[in-house]
């Protein structure tokens, strides 16, 4: 009985091979995510968080764009519910990823599904679905080990470089304006998303509303930008649909 349970914890050669396959796939992206983690770490301390707060945020939140989104809100003492709402909206992509990934994990126990969800990342979704998106059999041990090969190195490098940023951030002079790198990092997330015309229209609408509404209290300009941007995107998608069939 014990012998049959052991391979679940210690991978056999086949599982190790898939772990390595995941690791090789994710390796080239680690440079990017490590830099992004480092920038996030620096940005947290530069925006006034103590090292303890920044460390807690790194380990507990583990979501770069939500963290960077929260920083300007924290600096302007935005209400907690608004930071929560903004974090939810920025993280909505994980809901969509989760809906697609769920069939591969539904057979597992709840605590394991919890960990799989917590460790999942944008990159794990991209690699996992491009490899197993069309698999008939969902939830095989091989798939799990490939997933682990992506998310474990990702988690380690993100947190290592983020904490490095937190503890080195204090030694970097304010005149370097490294907090600007946080804005650039958010731009680096948005720009690749703008692939279709409705998405570009969403960007223009949200940007315009955010610019006009930036002096509104409670950062309500942000809430208005989200609502306006989503409406503009959906509307544009509906209006442009006949053209879309021929083009993209």
């Amino acid at each position, binding site marked *: 009985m014990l012998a049959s349970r052991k391979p679940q914890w210690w991978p056999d050669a086949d599982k190790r091979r898939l772990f390595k396959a995941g690791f090789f796939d994710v390796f080239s992206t680690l440079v*990017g995510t490590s*830099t992004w983690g480092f920038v996030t770490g620096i940005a947290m301390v530069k925006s006034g*968080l*103590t090292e*303890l*707060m920044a460390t*807690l945020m790194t380990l*507990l*939140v*583990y*979501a770069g*764009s939500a963290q*960077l989104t*929260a920083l*300007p809100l*924290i600096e302007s003492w935005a209400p*907690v*519910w608004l*930071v*929560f709402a903004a*974090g939810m*909206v*920025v*993280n*909505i992509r*994980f809901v*969509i990823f*989760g*809906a697609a*990934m*769920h*069939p591969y*994990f539904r057979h597992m126990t709840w605590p394991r*599904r919890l960990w799989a*969800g*917590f460790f*999942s990342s944008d990159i794990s979704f991209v690699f996992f679905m491009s490899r197993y998106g069309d698999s008939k059999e969902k939830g095989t041990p091989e798939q799990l080990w490939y997933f682990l090969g992506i998310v474990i190195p990702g988690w380690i490098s993100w947190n290592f470089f983020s904490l490095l940023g937190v503890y080195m951030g204090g030694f970097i002079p304010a005149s370097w*304006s490294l907090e*600007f*790198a946080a*804005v*650039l990092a958010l*731009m*680096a*997330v*948005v*720009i690749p998303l703008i692939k279709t015309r409705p998405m570009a229209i969403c960007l223009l609408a*949200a*940007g315009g*509303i*955010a*610019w006009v509404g*930036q002096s509104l209290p409670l950062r309500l300009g942000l809430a208005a*930008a989200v609502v*306006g*941007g989503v409406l*503009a*995107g*959906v509307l544009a*998608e509906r209006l442009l649909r006949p053209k879309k069939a021929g083009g993209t």
Partner: protein
Amino acid sequence: MTGDPEYDWYVFAVIGMLMLCSFLTRCGYYLFGDYLPLREPVRRALRYAPTAALVGIIVPELLPWQQGAGPTLDLKAAAALIALLVYWRTRSTLLVIVGGMAAYWLLDFLF
């Protein structure tokens, strides 16, 4: 701890809520996916939300204006534009950060 308990608790509350965000969005479907059908129109609409939210954060950072003073042109907006050009030429998100930062330092040195 900053010595300002009000700020400390505010930040810890924010961290707690963001942790809840991560938990709900990342683990929600992994845990409760069997009970949560996500309808296609909703799924399509949700794709626009992250773009809108991120742009809503970025724009006031790049193009701030104060009531009465009118818009102020910041070097950051120019540097961001250069970062955008860098992405257009290279398709590298890493170079958006590196290029934008280098452009900002250069502009800051020149003007």
